[in-house]
């Protein structure tokens, strides 16, 4: 196989509150022989909130981020669902609206950049599943996760709206997604089915609508627990923050104690590839990862 090479857009979270995500991403990329070039020039994607305030500014900033992947001539991979949605949405809007693209490029020209539309944008999960290939991954598994029931938590912004995601994220159906389930199986684990796996964690309404957000988090944790999961795995650091850090509020909101370790997608893959807990930053979790 030709060596895979991507431009990595880390987003803010992986550089701040979930350092373990960046660490584990780089660790498994090295094990798998995937080259990731960090886009240090990139800014925050606005996390689905900046566009509520200033849609045009959000487009300009996201387009600027993509410019840096284009300069390298590489596909951009994201490691946060919400970064993925915002970036792919920007790309889609600019690629389908020449007038808007011209307006954005007029601004980018002021700093010597031009958005062309030549780089694809995809979440690292889909780069693994589709470009690297699950069979190739399974062949490299050193420590099969066969003793674990693992609950996949997909996160909204990687699967909906499908019209957009089908262009960038491999076209799985949001009502019955399979990529993360398939990845669990490739790592030797047992995938757990539960109703909340493709539902919302509530993260984006946490400050302004704390009760709604906490109930959604509680439902997700309870669903995974009732399906006999030993832990949850997610491709989204925002889902991770909600599920890993906020179990107290979630338990209170649904009137039931819910707490379960939550791993980032690359941490799970890393365990199967034989990385050490330290290489995967497993010490950074609030809900302790006590099984390794």
């Amino acid at each position: 196989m030709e060596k895979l090479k991507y431009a990595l857009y880390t987003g803010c979270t992986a550089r701040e509150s979930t350092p373990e995500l960046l660490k584990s991403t780089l660790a498994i990329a090295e094990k798998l022989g995937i080259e990731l070039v960090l886009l240090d020039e990139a800014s925050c994607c606005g996390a689905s909130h900046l566009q509520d305030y200033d849609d045009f500014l959000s487009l300009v900033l996201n387009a600027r981020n993509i410019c840096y992947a284009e300069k390298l001539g590489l596909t951009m991979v994201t490691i946060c669902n919400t970064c993925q949605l915002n970036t792919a949405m920007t790309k889609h809007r600019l690629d389908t609206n020449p007038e808007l693209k011209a307006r954005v490029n007029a601004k980018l020209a002021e700093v010597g950049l031009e958005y062309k539309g030549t780089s694809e944008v995809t979440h690292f999960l889909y780069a693994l599943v589709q470009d690297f290939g699950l069979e190739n991954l399974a062949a490299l598994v050193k420590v099969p996760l066969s003793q674990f029931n693992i609950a996949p938590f997909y996160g909204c912004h990687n699967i909906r709206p499908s019209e957009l995601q089908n262009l960038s994220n491999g076209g799985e159906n949001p009502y019955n997604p399979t990529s993360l389930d398939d990845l669990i199986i490739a790592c030797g684990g047992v995938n757990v089915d539960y109703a909340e796996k493709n539902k919302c964690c509530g993260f984006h309404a946490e400050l302004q609508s704390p009760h709604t957000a906490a109930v959604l988090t509680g439902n997700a944790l309870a669903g995974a627990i009732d399906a006999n999961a030993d832990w949850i795995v997610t491709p989204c650091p925002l889902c991770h923050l909600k599920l890993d850090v906020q179990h107290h509020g979630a338990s209170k909101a649904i009137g039931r104690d819910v707490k379960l370790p939550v791993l980032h997608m690359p941490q799970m893959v890393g365990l199967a590839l034989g990385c050490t807990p330290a290489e995967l930053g497993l010490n950074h979790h609030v809900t302790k990862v006590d099984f390794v």
Partner: protein
Amino acid sequence: MDALTSQQVTFKVFRFNEETDYLPFYNTYTLNVTHEEVVLDILNRIKWDHDGSLSYRRSCRHGICGVCSIKINGKAILACKSRLFDLVKIFGTDLTIEPLSTKRVIKDLIIDKKDFWEKHAHVNPYLVSDIIEEPTSEHLVSPHDAEKLNEADYCIQCGACHYSCPALAINEQFIGPAAFAAAYRFSADVRDEGALERLHIVNEEAEGVWDCVKCMECAEACPKDVNPIEKITKLHNMIFEAGIAKNNVATRHAVGFAHSIQKHGLLDEGELVRYSEGNIGVMKHIPEALAMFKNGKIVMPWNMPKSKNLDEIKKLIQSSSTVKF
């Protein structure tokens, strides 16, 4: 599978009669379905050939009246528009047929949509305009102006989005995606003069657009591609443009991103929470913040990472900002 012209599918159909039943139950039917059949054909066959008491709504059979919306394996659909073979492709050959909301059932697949219509009525879903009693010409809308509605006028009030919205399922005050789309539809109409009042309605805390969790379920559920969440984003923008955004945690949360990006390129997560909540509100986050700090999840101000070429970002924020708060 595409080559098949018929196949066996097992249907589990939700049954409940408000007047006689204590609990709902399911009836199971295994039927041979053809590649031409839609869900409504199956409901008709069950009713005509197996159990005449099965109740469901249908009228136009043409994807236009919006009454036949139900859920299949949790996915909201129009029974008259969804082909069985497409559903089998997603879910396999075991399909569960349920009403849009199991909490609001009157009989079987028929629900009481009162809450939907109340929310709809709440946003003044009509043109507000002084009418010339004896017009001498038509009030024409140019194609360019008509495009501003962004297809929000395609809504058939089927309720698929409304009963797929998790924010609404938890917070009954929330106005919900269909009514927001209607609020946008009339506020974006060049003939309308009621936008400001509507924007005030959707700007209320707990009820309004700020309590959307951004799950994109409504965009996915809509059989008419109305894309309610896109209209919700536009309502947010219109609220800021009209200068009626209140100074509260929700608005500061949106604005705070611009401040943070201006300063670091990246988001200063801790500062965003402090700015959004205010110095007092932020206190309730202290227990979590401590737990995060203990596990190396909080970056100290002096270690805040910054984007490379930050001057470019600053310049773009200066030149590309279109709104003030």
